């Protein structure tokens, strides 16, 4: 585990499990250009090779396939992408994201550009799992819910749900990579559409 996502002086647990008040500072320090001061994260083990997972993730247009709230990601150039994300009340929030660090097969880090509806930054780490079990994929996300009336609405989604959303999105990523599909208990196409909205 790289020391950028753990704090060497304390223990080996990831920052997202930390009870310490300076966990956000440590996470912030681990990013090239941090945006946001609320920390969420989650690790999932995927029974596929590291390179395969990294390559899938690095093509950002793949992400809406398993990120439920992400309506679309328009890839602008090799580093920049525009994100449109569902918010409560049928609204959407948008931002442009820049890849700030990129190591093939290991990590992708990003930060939103100025003017984002929800300033955010984070990193996805890919590490070999022990015992040949595939790859540990860790999402570490900092975000900054905006103020104001719309902000409160957005915050309702982004303050309460990001941890759950990250967890569910990572599970869907795992399902897609391991099984080639995302499990649904819907019986009909109409039901599945309803569940996605």
């Amino acid at each position: 585990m790289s020391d950028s996502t753990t704090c060497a002086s304390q223990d080996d647990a990831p920052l997202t499990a930390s009870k310490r008040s300076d966990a956000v500072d440590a996470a912030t320090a681990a990013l090239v250009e941090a945006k946001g001061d609320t920390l969420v994260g989650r690790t999932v083990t995927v029974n596929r090779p590291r390179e395969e997972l990294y390559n899938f993730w690095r093509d950002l247009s793949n992400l809406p396939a398993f990120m439920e709230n992400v309506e679309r990601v328009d890839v602008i150039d090799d580093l920049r992408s525009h994100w449109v994300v569902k918010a409560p009340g049928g609204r959407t929030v948008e931002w442009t994201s820049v890849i700030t660090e990129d190591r093939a097969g290991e990590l992708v880090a990003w930060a939103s550009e100025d003017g984002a509806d929800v300033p955010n930054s984070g990193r996805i780490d890919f590490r070999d799992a022990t015992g040949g079990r595939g790859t540990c994929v860790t999402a570490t996300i900092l975000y900054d819910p905006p103020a104001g009336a719309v902000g409160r609405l957005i915050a309702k989604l982004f303050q309460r749900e990001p941890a759950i959303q990250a967890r569910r999105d990572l599970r869907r990523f795992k399902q897609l990579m391991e099984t080639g599909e995302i499990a649904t208990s819907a019986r009909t196409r109409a039901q599945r559409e309803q569940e996605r909205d």
Partner: protein
Amino acid sequence: MRALTWHGKHDVRVETVDDPEILNPRDAIIRITSTAICGSDLHLYDGYIPTMQKGDILGHEFMGEVIETGTGSTLKKGQRVVVPFTIACGACFHCSKHQYSACDNGNPADNQDIAMELYGQPMSGLFGYSHMTGGYAGGQAEYVRVPFSDVGPIVIPDGIEDEKVLFLSDILPTGWMAAENAEIEPGDTVAVWGCGPVGLFAVQSAFLMGAERVIAIDHFPHRLELARRFGAETINFEESATYEALMEMTGGIGPDAVIDAVGLEAHGFFVDNVIDQIKASTFLGTDRPHSIRQAIIACRKGGRVSMPAVYGGFVDKFPLGAFMEKGLTLKTGQTHVQHYMPALLNAIIEERVDTTFLISHRLPLEQAPEGYRMFHDEQNTVTKVVLKPGMAFGAE
């Protein structure tokens, strides 16, 4: 299509609902030819299982004919298949170790949260058994969508009637795994608490695995008679003191292995407040934890405890001291159905296992609510109800 839907306590109805469709590449659609009511369905019927929703289609013991396949399915139209109650992907770490009921991917992502909170990690999806286990529509219907159809369903050769193989879906593998978990050695005496379908299959399995004696414990005379038919000795706990009887019958040693198959069959999830409700209001609630306590106390020193019976929440007064001091081993878990199906299909074909003895009633799907009522109210004689969507009204 017509389907048996849940609407609340003691309220199940056969209704017309939309037909299932292929949604994912590995899906198949099965036309149901036979489906059974499981003992654990009664706990849905009694309203004890949380995360049920009105209109949910029940049923996790079913088989039928493949009528449609996705591009990733290995099944072919027209094949007859039995479908395991556990929904497993075949690709995750747990599936690679044949721990199918622990599959990471069978339960949709959003439904995993509740089980994660309760148990630390989510289990596989199950057909027709609440939204905590996925919210999948069950097989007490004319048709069902089967996910991961290249991993779960087993193809049945022509000429073997439904009733011989239907129980491969759940209770036969569950009884077999219970006996396997008892790690039976030649010459062993095995005690089985509960002569429901799982207990009775555990009795048969224990003998097949080399047990010299099997002692079956229940209070329904008809069910004890079924156990006796397979060579078991019996204890009716309403007439005899179980611990004293077991100690005397084993020459003061205690059974080498004990199997708790009381109460729920091998699945069903209870949060602990629901357990408390049951404890407070029913006979079953106080009896269930009792059987595992009694099994541990009766088990010989260094013996094995197998627990196919379901415990979903917390149990107090667990005899941890006896368990530790006697050096017992406990094995348990939801059944890894996919792992056991091929060998057990062979055992059925070679007539080493008898399955049809269990079926006491056959009804058309349209009469499923009557089937639930009978199974619920008349446990001594109604040992198993099989529903047939194509069957004429009122038959048998």
